[in-house]
């Protein structure tokens, strides 16, 4: 990540006490916003990717969620609640004077779905980050996308120094991707590489939106 690292700015511009530095407000000329979700298992590069492309210092927040526990705990007849922390990374790219793109990075596992579902409303697309060294970690995330009919999505395979040299066809087969789902190699630390992955996703979204016949595969439903 690069932006503003050497520019501490006003340490407390809005007088908010323990604030993180300069507040980067949205331009008042903006009248439309679009969003892309970045999902992936732990360590696949979500925080890195959002930081690499964001024009504002990428922000990170954590949300504590209550979950009703299920299974053996319930045998005691008590209404247990457990809390889970959900990390949310976000960044912003101004596309033109009126239009801003927000990136929201969040783990895509089942237990995060409550939070994820709200975020998923009105997304332009979902970028799924995959680490080829740990493909099975991504099954749950992909399963959740399918289960909730969250589309369109593209898969970005982040390249780590010790990543296996799988050809794209092997990765597609292992992840059971539909033929039309784009798969792109990416270095989440690199802005150009990451922008390219976003473009692949949006081109796919555009193709789907303009050719209604290729809309949904059987068994997949659209979000309302």
């Amino acid at each position, binding site marked *: 990540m690069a932006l503003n690292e050497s520019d501490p700015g006003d340490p407390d511009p809005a007088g908010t006490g323990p604030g993180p530095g300069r507040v980067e407000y949205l331009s*008042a000329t903006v009248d439309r916003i679009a969003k892309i979700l970045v999902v992936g298992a732990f360590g696949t590069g979500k925080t890195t990717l959002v930081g690499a492309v964001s024009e504002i210092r990428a922000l990170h927040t954590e949300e504590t969620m209550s979950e009703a526990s299920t299974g053996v705990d319930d045998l005691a007849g008590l209404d247990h609640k457990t809390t889970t922390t959900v990390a949310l990374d976000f960044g912003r790219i101004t596309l033109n004077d009126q239009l801003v793109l927000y990136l929201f990075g969040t783990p895509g596992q089942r237990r995060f779905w409550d939070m994820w579902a709200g975020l998923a409303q009105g997304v332009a697309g979902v970028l799924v980050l995959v680490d080829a060294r740990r493909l099975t970690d991504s099954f749950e995330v992909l399963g959740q996308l399918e289960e909730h009919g969250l589309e369109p999505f593209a898969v970005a395979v982040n390249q780590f120094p010790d990543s296996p040299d799988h050809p794209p066809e092997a990765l597609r087969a292992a992840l059971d991707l539909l033929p039309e789902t784009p798969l792109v190699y990416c270095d989440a630390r690199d802005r150009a590489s990451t922008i390219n992955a976003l473009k692949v996703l*949006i081109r796919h979204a555009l193709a789907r939106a303009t050719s209604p016949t290729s809309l949904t595969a059987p068994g997949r439903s659209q979000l309302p």
Partner: protein
Amino acid sequence: MTTAGERHGSGASPVRPYVLTGGRAATRHGLTVDTLLRATPDGPPLRADAAPQTRALLRLHRGGILTIAESAAYLGLPVSVVMVLAEDLITSDHLHQHAASQFAEINPTLLQEVLDGLERV
């Protein structure tokens, strides 16, 4: 990499949010993490007993427009807490949703505009 929020935003204990919200959840104004908020110009004075975090949220938004997620990160508070505080401030006419608050409808024109924007980045 250490982002701003990781340095400042992750220390909220579960007790503090509860005290701030009284255990309430945001339900009244249909806010989501990506709702854009701005301060109402010349809004009424805040109640004398408003929490410091409520004051901080209003002060932050007097500077300009931000999403709830961004405000939460700047203030080091959970998103769910900021939603409750923001609802109170909307009800009391200190904050309101920015015009662009609803995400644009996804259609080919918008997607093309997003793509064109990314090409220029």
